[in-house]
């Protein structure tokens, strides 16, 4: 059984299929990523460098924008990713993609 799953070749995150400790090496199609956080099962780990404001890609589609710079191997979750959709707390019109405010 694999320890992580990358769903689409376009993805910049992988899903942990088992709990990953910091320091775990992930060998993914030619690149190696060293996990730098504790990643619970089902949570996401960055497999590329993602700059603040850039799209986080899973299933080959954007799932939100990075709200901080994310290093390869880092835990990717609500602390560093913000949704672009249904955000009444942000100004703007419906359907318009918005970036998270810098934190």
């Amino acid at each position, binding site marked *: 059984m694999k320890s992580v*799953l990358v769903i689409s070749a376009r993805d910049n995150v992988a899903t942990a299929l088992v709990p990953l400790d910091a320091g775990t090496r992930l060998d993914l199609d030619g690149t190696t990523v060293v996990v730098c956080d504790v990643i619970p099962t*089902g949570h*996401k780990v960055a497999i590329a460098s993602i700059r603040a404001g850039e799209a986080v890609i899973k299933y080959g589609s954007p799932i939100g924008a990075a709200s901080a710079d994310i290093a390869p191997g880092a835990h990717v979750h609500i602390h560093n990713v913000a949704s672009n959709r249904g955000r009444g*707390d942000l100004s703007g019109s419906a359907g318009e993609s918005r970036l998270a405010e810098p934190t």
Partner: protein
Amino acid sequence: MPERVRPGFLGYKRPDGRVGTRNHLLVVPTVICASVVAERIAAAVGPACAALPHLAGCGQLGPDMRVTHDTLAAYCAHPNVGAVLVVALGCEQVMANVLADVARQHRKPVAIVAIQSEGGTVRTIEAGTRIGLELSATISTQEREWCDIADLVLSLKCGGSDYTSGLASNPALGRVTDRLVAAGGSAVLGEIAEIMGAEHLLAARATRPATAAQLIQVITRVETETRALGLDIRGTQPSPGNIRGGLTTIEEKSLGATHKGGEHAPLEDVVAYAAPIRRKGLTVMDTPGLDVEAVTGMVGGGAQVVVFTTGLGTPTGNPIAPVIKVTGNARTAQHLADNIDVDVSGIMDDSETLASAADRLFLEILAVASGRPTATETLGHREFAIHRRNPTI
């Protein structure tokens, strides 16, 4: 070479041409005030008798009143219902005789009892139980017959999602959807908020430009409503349990959830809450994400079987349609075993292929459509909730 036998199931062929997977006597209260009486009548008549207790039917404004009436009428017309007993109070907005007329138009035996004219709770339960037993005996002689898979309308639902939903149970259900639609059947997807972020994938499969435009329109409406409230959808979508399970944003949840609709099935139609599913193939219904309201609407639209995928596990069912619970989470399959019908967690640890899990699920759907009880039915989970959008007056 002999022609391959088409898949099918043993269903109830109704006089109006529709096909049911169950043969319930439906005891439908017109209004919340008649709900307890309706439930007691149903309990006295027996297990094949389903009450439809609800919180509406009076004090509602135009559009909500319409939805309440249309939803109750849709259940009276539903092919999983063999006969209807309407329980009225007497002074409410929903008209008992209009609901009874709907049942008659679909050539179902029907009767009305009213609390104010019968003379109170005890007399209405007594009269309703007597009439209910007669109606129940009348429909009990109807037998199941072989029905083609094209007669099946499947409701696709997910709830209590976690990371396994998008990787195992929803893709397995998606394969079933593609197979069902390719064979001429129908499937309906609801939960507009949980298409948000994945609408581009569904819109690209629309058979008409107008259908794609309608899909985008309902999604924009939900998003605009959220923004108009000045609220952040993140407080509820994803839910706290979704977030613990590893889902970060509504877009991620939606991309996983939309797998239920398959990869190939063309999007044929977009319909209003509890409105009739008019076309074969894949339909999107405008329902909220709240599980029971969503399932209530999709069954109202005509779905005779619900397939409900879950990661964390959830017990809810429906009064007249079997709800098949599917999980890709091995812990949930064990820990909530009494609520789970199909375990597809083998997809996660590579002990089963997606194709094999989808085959098992397809056969289970046909067995359930033919009468095999689901966990929701065995446990008596008959949750029912009509979607409402406006204040009660």
